[in-house]
């Protein structure tokens, strides 16, 4: 019974945390348990405590809603100067801010601390697919656009869809609204549909396909990074196949806008310490993340650049006006 009350108390803590000044660091994962943001909070939170960067275990709060928008508005409106709060962010945060999916809120209403790892974008086909290279697939789409449908773990207009579009746009294909894409419930679903032959391929993140690559049920046509990914050296990049596309799903954090510069820099230093730790290196390898460390002022300007690019592409496909 005691444990039960402890469990309930945890629920209660979630609701009041933050108001108390002595409260432990809280990490908001803006989604239900089980996704990338939840992973970011739990893994970074665990390492922060394990390597002694924070004094008590980091409290993870799942605040699902609005594709992260609910947590965003919560931080902007109610926790604007909480220096004990970190929030998990990723490429999806940037994509949605770019597409104005957070009800008018903008990227400059919080401060992006940094990213310490990225899930490289990949384009994958079933093992028995006729496409042997990214070029084959692009040619097939150019010849008969309707004959190739790709699946992905995001809705249309989401990052997995944009990966497909970026490659085709780079290949000089202009009619990008005709490209077939179906949004599935996560990358795992997209892979099963590809292996089952219902879609001709999938776009996703490296972490989603690792197990399937090892079992030989899928082949990766390209990885969307600048260099080949350590541990997956046999997968060619899109760049070396002649398509200058880099798309990685970075994992990082943002903090409220109103904290002092000293607090902001302290978070940057703690995040850098996590990035440098052996624990994080191990976690990255186990989860198919590639090194991608950008902390501090650089990161903010990099995020701004990503958002500007996404705005442009989203306008072309009509996701935003």
């Amino acid at each position: 019974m005691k444990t039960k009350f402890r469990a309930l108390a945890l629920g209660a803590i979630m609701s009041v945390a933050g108001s108390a000044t002595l409260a432990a660091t809280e990490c908001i994962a803006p989604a239900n348990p089980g996704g990338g943001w939840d992973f970011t909070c739990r893994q970074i939170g665990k390492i922060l405590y394990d390597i002694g960067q924070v004094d008590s275990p980091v409290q993870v709060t799942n605040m699902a809603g609005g594709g992260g928008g609910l947590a965003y508005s919560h931080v902007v409106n109610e926790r604007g100067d909480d220096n004990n709060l970190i929030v998990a962010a990723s490429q999806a945060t940037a994509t949605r801010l770019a597409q104005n999916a957070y009800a008018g809120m903008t990227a400059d209403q919080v401060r992006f601390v940094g990213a310490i790892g990225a899930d490289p974008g990949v384009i994958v086909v079933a093992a028995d697919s006729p496409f042997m290279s990214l070029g084959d697939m692009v040619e097939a789409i150019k010849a008969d656009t309707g004959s190739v449908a790709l699946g992905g773990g995001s809705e249309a207009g989401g990052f997995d869809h944009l990966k497909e579009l970026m490659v085709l746009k780079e290949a000089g294909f202009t009619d990008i609204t005709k490209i077939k894409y179906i949004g599935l419930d996560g990358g795992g679903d997209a892979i099963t549909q590809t292996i089952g032959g219902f879609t001709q391929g999938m776009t996703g993140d490296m972490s989603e396909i690792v197990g399937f690559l090892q079992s030989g049920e899928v082949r990766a046509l390209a990885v969307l990074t600048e260099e080949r990914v350590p541990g997956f050296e046999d997968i060619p990049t899109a760049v070396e196949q002649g398509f200058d596309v880099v798309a990685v799903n970075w994992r990082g954090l943002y903090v409220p806008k109103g904290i002092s510069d000293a607090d902001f820099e302290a978070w940057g230093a703690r995040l850098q310490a996590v990035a440098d730790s052996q624990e994080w290196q191990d976690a990255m390898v186990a989860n198919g993340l590639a090194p991608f460390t950008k902390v501090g002022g650089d990161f903010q300007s990099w995020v701004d650049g990503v958002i500007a690019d996404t705005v442009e592409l989203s306008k072309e496909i009509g996701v935003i006006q």
Partner: protein
Amino acid sequence: MELLSNLALGFSVALTPFTLFLAVAGCFLGTIIGALPGLGPSNGVAILIPLAFSLGLDATSALVLMTAVYYGAMYGGRISSILLNIPGDEPALMTTLDGYPMAKAGRAGDALVLSGFASFFGALFATIGLMLLAPLLSRIAYQFGPSEYFALYLLAFSTLGGIASRNQAKAALASCMGLGIAMIGLDNQTGMPRFTGGNLHLMDGVDFLVAIVGLFAVAEVFVFIESHGRESSIGVKLGKVTLPARDLAKGIGTMLRSSVIGFIAGVLPGAGASLGSFLAYMGEKNVQGEKGGFGTGVPKGVMAPEAGNNAAAGGALVPMLTLGVPGSGTTAVLLALLLTLNITPGPTLFTDRPDVVWGLIASLLIANFVLLAMNVPMVKMFVHILSVPAWVLLPGVMMISFVGIYSLSGSYFDLLLMIFFGIVGWIFRKLDVPTVPIILGILLGNHMEDALRRAMILSDGDWRFLFGFRWHAPSDAYEFYSAIPSSLLALAVAGFLAPIFLRRVIKKPRAVSD
């Protein structure tokens, strides 16, 4: 022999005193979490994850604790369904249909014992299935594309009309309302918000847990207050608990059929436990026919959904472990736990980490027997938690509802929505509109819509694709690529027509056998 040595490995991991203690503690906690309305297996497991980390558990111990909680919650959900007419969690929804009428007729003890046995049967069936066939079964998922899933959901909806024994039009109305509510939120295919009125809180749609707790728990409290307890279901007394051996023996066929249906629904990543218990109940209702008396409080009516949902819970572990695809909310949380422990589920998990997989399977077997012991001889202990006086129970139900719903998203908006559903539920009780179809509409509506839209995108809007035909460009003709969609659609038509047809045939009242 390989199987035996694997199992031996599993038991050597799972049979340490500490892991056994975790299994028992997890089963106990899980049963309570399942029985409390608003706290289901997924938030139960999610709430306990920090506990597992702060205790510093290793991968196998953490998994043992979490799956024990998971299985426990699947067992526990039926307790409040039967005694309070409030489903403890969403897969226990169908158990209210016959469980509560049985309790009202003074057979609460029988209902609890029989459903406990059925849960055991279903879970054991699924665990054995997982043990013997997991790598093979994962291939089923490759056979299911958009058309197949659409046909499967259509099958579920086609039998919805038969759910309310009295007025089918009201059941149809209720399911349409559920489908309507399901349309709220981001459109999965285009990413555009629908019917949200610009409200950020509605972007992810209406969580079915909010609707369940509102329509059942909160509405129940309203009814109780209004009628000063006379018309409410709260306060059913539990007589002495005996083993209804005759009913149990008669129900073996029911449990077997329901376990098979539930297990298959669980294995399909797009289906899940709720669909499993629903299809098991409706399937068995058709098997038993009109004289089966489903919906009036018959033992088989509690055994079918409980065997179905527990089998589905075990089945859902198959795609989670072998494909890394969570088939339900709870398996999504378990997947997160595995990833945090640096274990990546996928096709190679069985060969790469046999200690984890077989330790898990062994602990599932242990948990199942612990749960049988807890839920059959010791069921009174859990019942005591729910049979406190109404003046304690009702505020308690309200409090847990609020805490449980708030812990979902940490948003006050969901609480307002829950109260709104409570008022709707109270009005519907007065109008005699069944609320179960509303929940099913919310639960399954989006999946069905997504499946249909994906099928239409893939086939360029060609409806033949829904029957398993696809355009084959080289031969310039349609090819029949799979018999699954057509078979499921045929079943759907049969499921829709059977109740109407049977009613005509069985005009003469027959003696009801049990």
